[in-house]
């Protein structure tokens, strides 16, 4: 079972490392979002550090959605999805493999976007990195946990990729709220005691939706 999950994960990784289609698109889009925010926040230039947590997670969420779309849209090419569905395996394996792959791609993208953010907004962060890493990791895992399920849902609809942001963002709001707040705590208020609650909510969200998505995945993939 773990071997099969690894096979799914490894396949997506292999294809991505070879083509870099997803990663390029995600990176580029994330950085474009940062640039747009630079112009959007011109009037609050002095307090821009306060806005960084929000800007960062918006960039992560948008570029993450691109990655999520590709996860299943790429399977539609040549009806590879059909091939996967004909396999006599528990479909939860496909879920876990793809969820992990999405998390990895998103984390790679997030690190690069974060570095660009530091440069664009002239920030220095060294001490904060360990805690930021924790927040990025849990937040991304939670995002991918529910995003993978909903991406599978949207890929077989008439609107396909266009539908995913519409159904994903309302659901994933708790992750975004808490991740932004946690990032804000780390970067701005530095009241590390207050980190406990957002991190707990994010972890609970990830566990709840990871499990729920795994259980419901069978009902979602068809054709």
């Amino acid at each position: 079972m773990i071997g099969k999950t690894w096979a799914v994960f490894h396949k997506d990784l292999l294809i991505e490392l070879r083509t870099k289609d997803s990663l390029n698109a995600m990176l580029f889009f994330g950085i474009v979002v940062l640039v747009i925010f630079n112009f959007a926040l011109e009037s609050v230039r002095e307090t821009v550090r306060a806005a960084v947590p929000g800007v960062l997670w918006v960039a992560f969420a948008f570029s993450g959605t691109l990655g999520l779309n590709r996860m299943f849209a790429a399977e539609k090419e040549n009806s590879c999805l059909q091939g996967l569905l004909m396999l006599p395996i528990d479909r939860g394996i496909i879920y876990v493999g793809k969820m992990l792959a999405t998390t990895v791609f998103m984390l790679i993208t997030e690190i690069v976007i974060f570095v660009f953010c530091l440069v664009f907004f002239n920030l220095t962060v060294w001490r904060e990195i360990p805690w930021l890493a924790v927040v990025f990791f849990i937040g991304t895992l939670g995002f991918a946990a529910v995003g993978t399920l909903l991406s599978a849902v949207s890929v077989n609809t008439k609107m396909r990729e266009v539908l995913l942001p519409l159904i994903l963002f309302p659901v994933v709001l708790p992750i975004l709220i808490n991740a932004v707040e946690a990032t804000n705590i780390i970067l701005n208020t530095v009241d590390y005691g207050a980190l406990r609650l957002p991190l707990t909510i994010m972890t609970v969200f990830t566990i709840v939706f990871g499990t729920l998505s795994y259980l419901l995945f069978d009902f979602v993939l068809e054709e």
Partner: protein
Amino acid sequence: MSESGRHRVDAVLGALLLAGMVLALYMAFLHAPREKTMGDLQRIFYFHVPAAITGLTAFAVNFAASLMYLIRKNRWWDSLALAAAELGVVFTAIVLVTGPIWAKPVWFVWWTWSPRLTSSLVLWLLYAAYLLLRNYVPDPERRASVSAVFGIVAFIDAPIVWFSIRWWRDIHPAPMLETGGLSPSMRPAFLVCWIAFQLLFLYLLRRRMALEGARLDIEQMQRQADMSR
């Protein structure tokens, strides 16, 4: 239940509803006392809050129906889930409209990012997304499965959303807060309005499901007509 049996239930329910609504209007506008600070504007509370509760009831029904559909694969549950979701969206919309009507004269802003209003907005978005999703899946069996999954996800998400927003508001307090308090003299009016809204929900649910049943019947007749051509 037979056709005439169903009609009888609907008739009784309709009569009860009419009486309930008239009573609710009386209670809210005449019987209930005038509130100290906000005056008559506060009476919107008797519709704003019951609408919110009814919206939540509707979504709970959608959750249960979605679960039952995945277990039984019977289209009746899917019809129930759809009807409940639509009504939930409507009632939550009432909350979102009465909120600003209430807020503007009192706090001079159309929208307050208060926990209840914000949560209602997200809830509305979740179930609007549910309806949107249904719209884009042509295969009826798949549509039922996929929206059932989303209905379950949305319902489990809702408390986490509410909690997150509540906590976030605690950290970033806003000057305007909702008055949730109910003095004892207001309770009867509130109770009547709440019951009236629940009756409205029940009545509309039955009508909506009957409509859906009729739609499916028409489709079947169209299929048979196409066949014999």
